[in-house]
């Protein structure tokens, strides 16, 4: 039986062609057009070398602001999602009832469109919204804010909404990781008199490193690519304070500065790929075999 005959290349061709034409070509074109002055004002597209990138990375450029906001957003969403996800996973795994129902509820936001979540939270976070009403109910009147308008809190608010969306997803992955840890480890540790805290720090966490790593990588990629949720929630405002890179790409695009929009897209691409690979390598070094 000739492998090349039976496993014919015709089976591969449609996928490779569609993927190449509609995914790879735009990405490669992006590299090319990022070095042009492509815009809606003129009909000719001129090669300008690295000018767009020099503009992005020049001192005091608004794009550096976009970049730092994106990084802050990514780091903090990562911490909240993974921290709360781990907490929930431990809770759900601790022999409580209605485990699968809770899992289903926490996972639910992940199946909703981020845009729609953004729209809903506009109302919930408004000054007269339910978040402030809840804070007043528990006596924390001082903490009520105009969450999406106040420059001091708006980025934090978007971070919490994005985390709301993704905590359940983190929980499910970490829960699967927890369930893969053999129970004997805990029994042996308990016999030796290890506390819950000791068991958590010295058994759970080290054995959970692979799950924590993969969620960290994916959370980072999601964070850097975030668009819809912010677009709906704040539109990047007030005053560019929540303008993540992909939101800036859209704004450049709608102003007709296609070359610059493309260059920013390339920056998102480069950072996403670099950070994802770096985190994976760094964390995988600490893997403990179960």
């Amino acid at each position: 039986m000739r492998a090349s005959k039976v496993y014919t290349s015709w089976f591969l061709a449609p996928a490779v062609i569609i993927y190449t034409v509609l995914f790879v070509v735009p990405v490669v074109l992006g590299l090319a057009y990022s070095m042009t002055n492509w815009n809606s004002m003129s009909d000719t597209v001129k090669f300008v070398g690295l000018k767009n990138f020099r503009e992005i990375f020049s001192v005091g450029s608004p794009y550096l602001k976009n970049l730092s906001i994106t990084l802050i957003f990514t780091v903090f969403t990562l911490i909240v999602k993974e921290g709360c996800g781990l907490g929930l996973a431990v809770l759900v795994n601790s022999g409580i009832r209605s485990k699968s129902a809770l899992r289903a509820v926490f996972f639910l936001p992940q199946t909703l469109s981020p845009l729609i979540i953004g729209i809903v939270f506009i109302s919930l976070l408004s000054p007269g919204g339910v978040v402030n009403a809840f804070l007043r109910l528990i006596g924390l009147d001082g903490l009520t804010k105009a969450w999406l308008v106040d420059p001091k809190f708006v980025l934090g608010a978007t971070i919490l909404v994005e985390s709301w969306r993704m905590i359940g997803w983190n929980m499910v992955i970490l829960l699967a990781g927890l369930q893969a840890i053999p129970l004997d480890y805990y029994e042996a540790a308990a016999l030796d008199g290890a506390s819950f805290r000791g068991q958590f720090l010295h058994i759970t966490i080290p054995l959970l490193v692979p799950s924590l790593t993969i969620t960290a990588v994916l959370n980072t990629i999601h964070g850097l690519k975030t668009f819809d949720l912010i677009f709906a929630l704040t539109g990047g405002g007030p005053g560019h304070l929540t303008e993540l890179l992909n939101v800036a790409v859209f704004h450049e695009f709608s102003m007709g500065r296609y070359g610059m929009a493309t260059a920013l897209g390339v920056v998102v691409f480069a950072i996403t790929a670099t950070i994802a690979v770096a985190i994976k390598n760094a964390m995988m070094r600490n893997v403990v075999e179960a």
Partner: protein
Amino acid sequence: MSRRKALSSALGTAGGWLLALVILVPLAIVVLASLKTKPEAATMDLTLPAMPQWGNYLEAIRRGGLVRAFFNSVLISSVSATVCILVSSTAGFVLSRNRTRLNNAIFNYIFLGLIAPLNYITTIRTFQVLHIMNSYVGIILLYIALGIPFAVFAYFGYVSTIPRELDEAAVIDGCNPWQMFSRVIFPLLKPVTITVLVLNFLGAWNDFISPLYLLNRQSTWPMVLSVYNFFGMHFNEWNMISAVILLGTLPVMLLYLFGQRYIVSGMTSGAVKQ
């Protein structure tokens, strides 16, 4: 000891449901608001409508142009998910079975698509050259392309658990490659097929950024874009906005209700070893 255990389990369960309220309350608010009058819905909260306004949904469908949007979303999501299955299952099968150096390179080439974000501006350029801007064909092809990396990856892994002897038996019985794949192998790939189908359908249904860049004609708009448009034009009518949102997410909710197992395992696979 056992009483203490029962108590802590009950406390944990209660705590779990208390935290679940953080997820459930916002959803409940939207459902309630969709049944309120405009002044009642001005503050979105957990109060019940004085009189449920069932007519809101009909009005939302009419004013939001949701019939058209619904069919657009169904068309775009189902066709792209189906074709993606077709091209990715065959590709994953061949890549898994015939591991030549070229095929390994192709696998890695496709795998890159799992990390790399798409550049939408140059996608517009590509669409213009191919004359598929503002068309169903264009956005469907794009969703297929975006779905291929994960689908090929999933099929690739699953095919390697199916014995090669089956292929050989089929070939000896006189099947050509297509018959062998479609009659013998493909039916065995059902778990991956359902997962990929559901995920791609969901992904296309919920996507906002692609139609935002690539569909400028309102007649082609899918549900999420229509929701956004409605929100932009009637931003103080929260009862209507909620009704539109509810109708826009209803199919997704139903899918989640019945296909939860596939959705949860699919959305976390790659991260979780099955």
